[in-house]
């Protein structure tokens, strides 16, 4: 019983982290239909930047998180402006953007490896200590992470709902020609979208790094997990990413409990396969 409760809690914690990680992916895909195959490395880069501000400039960790965000935004905008924008106009944009981001990811990963070395970087916990809930022990850090993730999701949904920029992004997501007709500058929106998504991704990377460990290569693991989550929940849908992340986070912790950690991937693959056969648009996704 106790172990089941523990698995439930840990599933919830990793699920909420996966949710914020998957958000960056789903934002780009939902609005610009570009699938970011460099996602994992963007997340890792965010983690390393936050770590650099934290250790080299000896800022408090929360402040270094805030410093990292504009850098990530700029990077996202640059990638769109100088590479993806041109590729999207060409035939076979689907796959060429995938390959471009993949190549960029590999390049960035190895640059990070050159600068920071292969050793594990420790990102500090936000709050130390832990509390007991009945028989289960929860770290304060994990609680803080869940609260941050929840706040982040609320801020993002409100941004998409209330602000003009968010509404313009939604309009582009619904119909590119339609949005163009009402006077939205599509390319500018795409640029902002990439910036926003890279920012969210970098932020999630820093959070993930504080829960798990961080080496340059870990980004590929995070990314493939993110892929399964967004496809599972429904690509381009924010509630989909959250639901998918929670379901798969639970599946992960219960698989670990029942069979061992190595079986997580095969279980995810089977779940993914079954879902794609029954509902190719994902759990929450609408008609495509």
């Amino acid at each position: 019983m106790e172990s089941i409760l523990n698995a439930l809690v840990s599933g919830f914690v990793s699920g909420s982290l996966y949710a914020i990680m998957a958000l960056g992916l789903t934002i780009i895909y939902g609005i610009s239909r570009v699938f970011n195959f460099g996602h994992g490395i963007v997340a890792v880069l965010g983690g390393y930047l936050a770590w650099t501000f934290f250790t080299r400039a000896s800022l408090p960790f929360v402040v270094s998180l805030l410093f990292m965000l504009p850098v990530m935004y700029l990077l996202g905008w640059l990638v769109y402006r100088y590479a993806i924008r041109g590729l999207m106009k060409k035939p076979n944009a689907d796959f060429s953007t995938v390959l471009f981001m993949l190549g960029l990811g590999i390049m960035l990963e190895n640059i990070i490896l050159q600068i920071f070395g292969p050793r594990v970087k420790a990102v500090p916990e936000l709050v130390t200590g832990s509390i007991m809930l009945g028989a289960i022990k929860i770290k304060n850090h994990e609680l803080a992470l869940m609260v941050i993730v929840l706040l982040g999701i609320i801020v993002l949904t409100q941004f998409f709902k209330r602000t003009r920029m968010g509404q313009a992004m939604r309009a582009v997501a619904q119909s590119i020609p339609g949005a163009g007709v009402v006077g939205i500058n599509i390319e500018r929106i795409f640029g902002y979208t990439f910036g926003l998504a890279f920012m969210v991704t970098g932020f999630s990377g820093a959070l993930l790094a504080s829960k798990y460990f961080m080496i340059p290569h870990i980004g590929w693991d995070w990314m493939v997990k993110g892929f399964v989550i967004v496809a599972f929940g429904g690509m381009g849908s924010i509630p989909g990413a959250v639901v998918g992340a929670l379901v798969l986070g639970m599946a992960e912790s219960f698989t670990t409990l029942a069979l061992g950690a190595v079986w997580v991937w095969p279980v995810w693959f089977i779940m993914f396969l079954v879902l794609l056969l029954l509902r190719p648009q994902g759990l929450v996704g609408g008609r495509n």
Partner: protein
Amino acid sequence: MKKLNLTRNTVILAVVLLLIVLYPLLGAKPYHLHLFILFFIWAMVASSWNLLNGISGINSLGNIGFMAIGGYGSAILAKTFGLSTLITIPLGGIIAMVLVTLFLGLPTLRLKGVYIALLTLIFADTLPTLLTQTRAVTGGAVGLHEIPPFFAGAGKIHNYYICLAAFLVMLYVIHRLIKSNTGLAFVALRDSENLATSLGVSRFRERLKVFAISALLSGLAGGFYVHSLGDISPTTLAIEPFLMGIAMMELGGIGTLFGPVLGAAIIVFGSEFLRLADVLRMTILGGLICVTILFFPGGLMQAFRKLGNLMDRRGKRKRGESVQAKVQSAD
């Protein structure tokens, strides 16, 4: 004009082929033979991958997985059951074909675009876990070593000719396939699915076919890989070989017959030079992919075609001039 072009290309091909055939007899070092063997195998992998991604426009990212299945299948059959490689390599290919058609071909029938890329990538990503979990059969994380060679006492030079022959046969098969009705159907589905299906091309059948063929050929390449190199481990499925495969297709020219072969040559021989750069190698490989996609989307084949056209045009002009000169002298 077209006829002239054909003969020139044929002559170049024949000379290159002759050099490759004669190369081991001219006293090549074993290490260079090894590089050529790698090139033949990679050219097979890239060509069969290109069948999916280039010819049929199905964005598979899992072909290294297909190759690993074929390789493991053949290696296990040969090592534990002591079967002849004449049987095990085709069997390995068939195992890869059946598994891939079942687990990827059928599910992707309902999927489009990036979903296929995702599913195939995750398929290939699941394999290392399964391999490390079935240590008794597959050797786990260490992999399989001392896999029997093609035949007892086969050396580098035998491996060279066997892989060369396999590569040539496979390239010929792919060439025939592209020219056949099946190949035309693949291309038609890639270029306009609606038009193709309205003309009676069965999307269901053609897609299963292309997955089956690509997996069979990749699996066979995997068989040649294990028996000429002697070992295989889950690191075959790491990110580097995967990226190398993609770089080969893109660099050489995706969707063409010789593009992947050319790309394989550049990457296999080029990464020998890059060995000096050591850790920077992956950075360069990634950068190469980026630059090719951004600036040379058709790869080297397109560049060659442009060059060929340019030479033709210049040749035409020259001949035109000489005709003019004759006319003038006749005056």
